[in-house]
């Protein structure tokens, strides 16, 4: 019989970028149960649809989360466009896809750095964020903002990217590929980092299905669930895209899936830049939203779900976001059972928690 202790983890903790509280029930050094306690970032921003007109609300939707900002802006715009039957120009679809895949690269590099920092591997943290700055420079050159850049609007996008600039971006990304490979190779071959990730935080295929996990969390357990396969609002059908999966079911697998997705996104952006047509970037929006619509989007952390309801006024009656971390929290609680106390930060970071998305 071991000693039973309850250790509080968070809301302020060196490895946590965001406040979340876990009560960890320990039997000696093994975690028996983890009880999450959230609510530190709940702003209740979905209720702001009553106070902001539907065209202005996109600025609030983007600020659900600073890391997945573009994704939420796109998700909101696509759900209102679906509701109002607005068909956006093809060039706008290409631009949205390019910006979103750049967002995915920046988000995965950010997560890789935080994961390394959580492990104590500070130099890898510095290198991956140094590489990430190249993507943020592209954002700043094309939109003016580094993290929250308000590029999406209902009906299309706000800004165009000149073709010459697009080719410059493709060159930068091709150059980045080797640098990313260099740092991730170290990450996957270095014995200390491998021993902290392999066979840690196992989420079996059956558990992944039972906990309804999404994103890289479930793709590392062998299930090829990736909404980009079915998404018609972007141009994924025209680009060579297959979901990246592996079946190791542990933290190592999830890291591997995210790194492969960085390379896949780099390829997809270069392809999109070659295929992008000339044309308009937005269409005018007339009338008010009426009815309801469901939309989905594959964000870096997984599938995000958007629901809008309108009653033919300038204000929506309901906007609901179900973000990927919302579904991955039960999977995280499941993966924490039976792990060592020292592995808790690794498992928490491995779901790529975005608590501000979850709580809105």
């Amino acid at each position, binding site marked *: 019989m071991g000693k039973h202790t309850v250790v509080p983890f968070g*809301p*302020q*903790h*060196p*490895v946590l*970028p*965001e*406040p979340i509280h876990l009560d960890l029930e320990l039997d000696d050094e093994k975690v028996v149960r983890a009880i999450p306690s959230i*609510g*530190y*970032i*709940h*702003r*209740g*921003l979905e*209720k*702001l649809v009553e*106070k902001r007109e539907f065209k202005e609300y996109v*600025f*609030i939707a983007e*600020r*659900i*989360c*600073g*890391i997945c*900002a573009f994704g939420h802006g796109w998700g909101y715009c696509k759900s209102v466009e679906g509701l109002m039957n607005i068909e956006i120009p093809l060039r706008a679809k290409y631009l949205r896809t390019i910006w979103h895949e750049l967002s995915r690269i920046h988000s995965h590099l*950010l997560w890789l*750095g935080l994961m390394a920092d959580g492990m104590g591997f500070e130099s890898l*943290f*510095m*290198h991956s*964020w*140094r590489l990430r*700055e190249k993507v*943020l420079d592209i954002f700043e050159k094309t939109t003016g*903002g*580094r*993290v*929250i850049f308000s590029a999406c609007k209902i009906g299309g996008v706000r800004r165009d990217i000149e073709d010459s600039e697009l080719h410059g971006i493709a060159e930068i990304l091709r150059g980045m590929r080797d640098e990313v490979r260099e740092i991730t190779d170290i990450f996957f071959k270095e014995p200390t980092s491998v021993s902290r990730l392999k066979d840690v935080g196992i989420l079996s295929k059956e558990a992944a299905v039972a906990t309804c996990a999404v994103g890289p969390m479930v793709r590392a357990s062998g299930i090829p669930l990736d909404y980009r396969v079915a998404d018609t609002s972007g141009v994924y059908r025209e680009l060579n895209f297959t979901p990246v999966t592996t079946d190791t079911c542990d933290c190592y697998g999830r890291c591997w899936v995210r790194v492969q997705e960085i390379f896949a996104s780099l390829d997809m952006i270069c392809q999109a830049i070659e295929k992008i047509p000339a044309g308009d970037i937005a269409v005018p929006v007339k009338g008010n939203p009426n009815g309801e619509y469901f939309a989905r989007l594959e964000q870096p952390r997984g599938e995000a779900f958007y629901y809008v309801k309108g009653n033919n006024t300038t204000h929506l009656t309901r906007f609901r976001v179900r973000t990927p971390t919302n579904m991955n929290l039960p999977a995280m609680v499941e993966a924490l059972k039976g792990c060592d106390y020292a592995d808790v930060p690794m498992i928490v970071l491995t779901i790529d928690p*975005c608590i*501000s998305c979850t709580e809105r």
Partner: protein
Amino acid sequence: MSFMKKSPWVIHYDGSSCNGCDIEVLACLTPLYDIERFGIVNTGNPKHADIFLVTGAVNAQNVPVVRQIYSQMPEPKVVVAVGACAASGGVFHDCYNIIGGVDKAIPVDVYVPGCAARPQAIIDGVVQGLAVLEAKRKLLAEGKLEELEQKDQLPPLPPQTHVKEDQA
């Protein structure tokens, strides 16, 4: 004690923010902006910190946490509110759960505007905070403890705060 002005340690806490300002705070530590070359270190322990970087328009549940971290920091200490939300509530100022800025929970010395605040602005804010830190250090050295405590006194608890049973 002038090493404090040359090499202050910062602690960062996300007080109900969207994360944008938080990743820009972390970006200050990384090679492009690199505040570590000035000796500024990001610590996780409030008892080791001189400067408290808070982001986000604080919500009801987060008020006791922010106050507790502030109380744990030893004197002299400086609070830098990073971002539009920390200054006044930002775009969320009229949400039901938001108290409307960090200065309603703890006394703030420097406000850094922006949404998200840029790393250059954050570093500028920290440097401005250093002057305040130096002034407070002098007060402490001269033994003017009451004056210092009055400056750093916690404001009254905002009415919307949700206080857990053991913190009441």
